[in-house]
């Protein structure tokens, strides 16, 4: 088992999992908030926020990575502030890779959740209100369970994207084995050297297997939720 991947490769697999999981988990609350705001609220600058969210999709990943480097790098204004005030260093750490993956996956996550929120029947939320639930409680007890399939869809899209993210990550946090070398970076490295294709293919296989497993689990959960709502 352990011998068909080198220790560096194993570390890349583990790192990719960690980076993707954190990227998804940490961006989930923000994604939900932004999706809800875009779906339900009217506020000044809504379209600007909407555009910002989509930005990582529109720009070549390298550009996004470069912007991240300029903003969150050691010399970047936000990067410096984070380091000074909270001691959080993103540059050239796996946390930075997670940030890059989260940013790249954010538009996918938000869109899926937003679609789901827009499909919720507001009359059910009204009913919850008349039963005494405040807006927040309505969200937690009615909206949230009803959009669960959308959340799952958003999470799985984001996870898949995070697993495959490469351009922004390597530009922002480089390709340091064991620290920032994710599966896609490792694959890239192999593709850069003569004869590396087989090894790249092996790693791609690992990535695919992980993503498929996540996909199957998500489908299964989604279906269980849908079946419950459709009545036993």
């Amino acid at each position: 088992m352990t011998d068909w991947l080198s220790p560096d490769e194993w570390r890349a697999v583990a790192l990719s999992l960690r980076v993707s999981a954190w990227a998804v988990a940490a961006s989930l609350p923000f994604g939900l908030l932004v999706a809800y705001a875009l779906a339900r609220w009217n506020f000044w600058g809504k379209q600007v926020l909407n555009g910002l969210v989509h930005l990582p999709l529109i720009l070549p990943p390298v550009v996004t990575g470069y912007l991240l480097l300029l903003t969150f790098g050691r010399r970047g204004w936000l990067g410096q502030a984070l380091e000074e005030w909270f001691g959080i260093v993103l540059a050239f750490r796996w946390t930075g890779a997670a940030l890059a993956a989260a940013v790249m996956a954010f538009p996918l996550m938000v869109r899926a959740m937003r679609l789901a929120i827009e499909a919720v029947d507001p009359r059910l939320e009204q009913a919850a209100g008349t039963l005494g639930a405040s807006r927040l409680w309505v969200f937690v007890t009615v909206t949230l369970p009803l959009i669960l399939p959308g959340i799952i869809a958003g999470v799985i899209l984001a996870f898949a994207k995070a697993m495959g993210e490469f351009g922004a990550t390597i530009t922002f946090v480089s390709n340091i084995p064991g620290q920032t070398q994710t599966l896609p970076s490792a694959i890239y490295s192999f593709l850069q050297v003569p004869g590396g294709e087989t090894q790249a293919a092996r790693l791609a296989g690992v990535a695919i297997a992980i993503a498929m497993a996540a996909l199957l689990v998500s489908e299964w959960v989604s279906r269980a939720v849908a079946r419950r709502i459709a009545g036993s």
Partner: protein
Amino acid sequence: AASMKTALDAVAADFQTATGHTVTISYAGSNALAKQIIEGAPADIFISAAVNWMDEVEKAGLVADGSRTDLLGNTLVLIAHGKGAAPVAIAPGFDLAGLLGDNKLAMALVDSVPAGQYGKAALESLGVWPAVEPLVAQSDNVRAALALVSTGEAPLGIVYASDAAADDNVTVVGTFPADSHPAIVYPAALLTGAADAADRAFFEALSSDAADARFAAEGFAILN
């Protein structure tokens, strides 16, 4: 530069067995690495595939005084798809466009990626660029250009000799004269952040005979 992975990994492994120090190498495009170093990457040694990005780092004052050295060189070759393709005589005015016909010439990005820049300069100096220019398919790196020839998508391509060596599906059909393009140089330098002796030791080790053998095995020219 990413294309040095095989050789450099071996050098690093040798160094580790010899000294017990672990070397961490980050392979990425020279431009990305340079920018990262300028933005404060915790790097000790920078090996660039192009002179200009080392210049940038130097301009930023991040190169340790006097450490910059031209570590490796490379040769530019014309490759063709398949085994045993007929050699092409590369000389001023040679009919590259004619050889291509309707097909494409695979190169790296001719204005931005070193291998492409060298290639373009060579073709210009040989006087065939105007005829070939519309036929050039530019990839974002040499390996991708090689892949185009290797799969037969493009019959001919211009890549480094070090890349062409390992691919069974391509044949080197000609080598560009060294004077047809600026010297292909991989500069290396100790960075100002590099403090300890181990950093220096590895930097020295890059120019050792053992390292030279490793690099030479991968098709690089030893400049130092």
